């Protein structure tokens, strides 16, 4: 398909790899923020084509993975109620809550439906006026505008039986949290291209400056990733730390003004706990006062949830780039995509699932964990 094949061209990829080898003189560790990028990197073995000592640390940018356990448990509570149709993106179905998942609720008779778009959930609400329809609104700045528009439409069209269970997260505060962590090894970032398609690049220069890290806005195809890596190592080698846009075909500096205006109307900033990482101040969005009646947390009083995380799962360390999935003793044995113990094994954007799909037959684990 146009814009996909051209940016996977193996000959050009080879040239970019050569250029990276020619540029690098020292070991460097950089983080790709987005799970979609992790998927491309592991699938194509991009990390294994890099010079020795150049390491890709996989970031927390998989929304399925970082949605807090408490919110998953809330979703399970709501979905199990009679008279509720619970709509969600497909990859949330298997995310383990404390003991069960949405799939289980569905098999026990709950009306859980997979939709492609939040607007589909709104349509379900219009078609079922006697039911409460709840959409599970998770995701980064890329998914927030579609969810915002859906709530805006519900209000505009007067659809009273629709609500959103919101757990949106934002990238810049996560970058800050990563850089402030004492165990941080990250020296540069590949920023998530589609997040920047919406938000633009204005939030990043300050972070690049404050933490002395290059931040390169990067796309998702193999050539995009390699170009992002090349620009990052070029900056690192020169001792620079500025924001660059290596995904110009889809990212304007100002982002998408219409989407940003809608976000400002529908959402407000809130503190948010990230699964496996913990509370990050001002890192999330919730519905603003004007839209509170569409907030499922207010509509359904589910409180007193005591969330319990699996004791073996090390997804928190995976999400912070402290270990690679192979280093978890449950990886590929008791924890598989069919029976995931942690959220990072669920979505193919999760690092554990990406390694399971593309790396599990590779021995020995150390060869991969060094990333070189």
């Amino acid at each position, binding site marked *: 398909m146009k814009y996909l094949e051209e940016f996977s061209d193996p000959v050009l990829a080879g040239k970019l790899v050569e250029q990276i080898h020619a540029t690098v003189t020292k070991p460097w560790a950089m983080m790709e923020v987005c799970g979609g990028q992790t998927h491309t990197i592991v699938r194509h073995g991009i990390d294994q*084509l890099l010079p020795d000592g150049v390491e890709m640390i996989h970031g927390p940018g998989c929304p399925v993975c970082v949605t807090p356990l408490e919110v998953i448990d809330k979703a399970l509570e709501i979905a199990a109620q009679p008279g509720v149709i619970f709509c969600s993106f497909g990859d949330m179905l298997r995310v383990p809550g404390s003991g069960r998942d949405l799939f289980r609720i569905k098999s026990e008779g709950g009306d859980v439906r997979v939709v*492609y778009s939040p*607007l589909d959930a709104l349509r379900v609400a219009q078609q079922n006026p006697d039911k409460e329809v709840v959409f599970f609104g998770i995701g980064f700045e890329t998914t927030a*505008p579609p969810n915002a*528009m859906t709530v805006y439409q519900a209000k505009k069209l007067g659809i009273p039986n629709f609500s959103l269970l919101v757990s949106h997260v934002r990238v810049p505060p996560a970058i800050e949290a990563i850089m402030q962590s004492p165990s941080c090894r990250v020296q540069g970032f590949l920023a998530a291209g589609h997040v920047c398609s919406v938000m633009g690049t204005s939030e990043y220069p300050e972070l690049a400056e404050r933490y002395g890290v290059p931040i390169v806005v990067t796309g998702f195809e193999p050539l995009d990733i390699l170009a992002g890596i090349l620009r990052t190592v070029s900056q690192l080698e020169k001792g620079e730390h500025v924001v660059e846009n290596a995904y110009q075909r889809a990212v304007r500096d100002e982002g998408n003004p219409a989407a940003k205006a809608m976000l400002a109307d529908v959402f407000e900033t809130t503190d948010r706990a990230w699964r496996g990482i913990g509370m990050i101040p001002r890192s999330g969005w919730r519905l603003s006062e004007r839209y509170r009646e569409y907030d499922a947390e207010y509509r359904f009083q589910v409180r007193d949830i005591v969330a319990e995380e699996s004791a073996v799962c090390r997804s928190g360390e995976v999400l912070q780039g402290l270990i690679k999935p192979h280093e978890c003793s449950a990886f590929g044995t008791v924890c598989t995509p069919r029976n995931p113990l942690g959220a990072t094994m669920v979505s193919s954007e999760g690092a554990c699932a990406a390694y399971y799909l593309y790396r599990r037959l590779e021995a020995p684990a150390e060869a991969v964990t060094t990333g070189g």
Partner: protein
Amino acid sequence: MCLAVPGKVVEIREEDGTRMGQVDFGGVLKDVCLEYLPDLQVGEYTIVHVGFALQRLDEESAMQSLELYRKLGALEEEFGDQWGLAARQAGERRPPGTDWEEASQ
């Protein structure tokens, strides 16, 4: 879930006061909300995520990027190079079964 894919706008219409359209993803047509790109035209490419067009794709900068990558290393090829060596070494470490393998050898 975060996946956003490029597609070509083939039709634009109004629905309940909302700007909607059909987008062609390599032969698969989908209904997409175009509200966030009020001046997107039929024939243009856009990045679509969960049924919403989020940004137009700029053909010119796509071409420029590809052109830039094509030119990489061109000088060295003429002089016989160190980079080719580096790439061959990189190639040897290429894992079996990656998509690039057949095409690049």
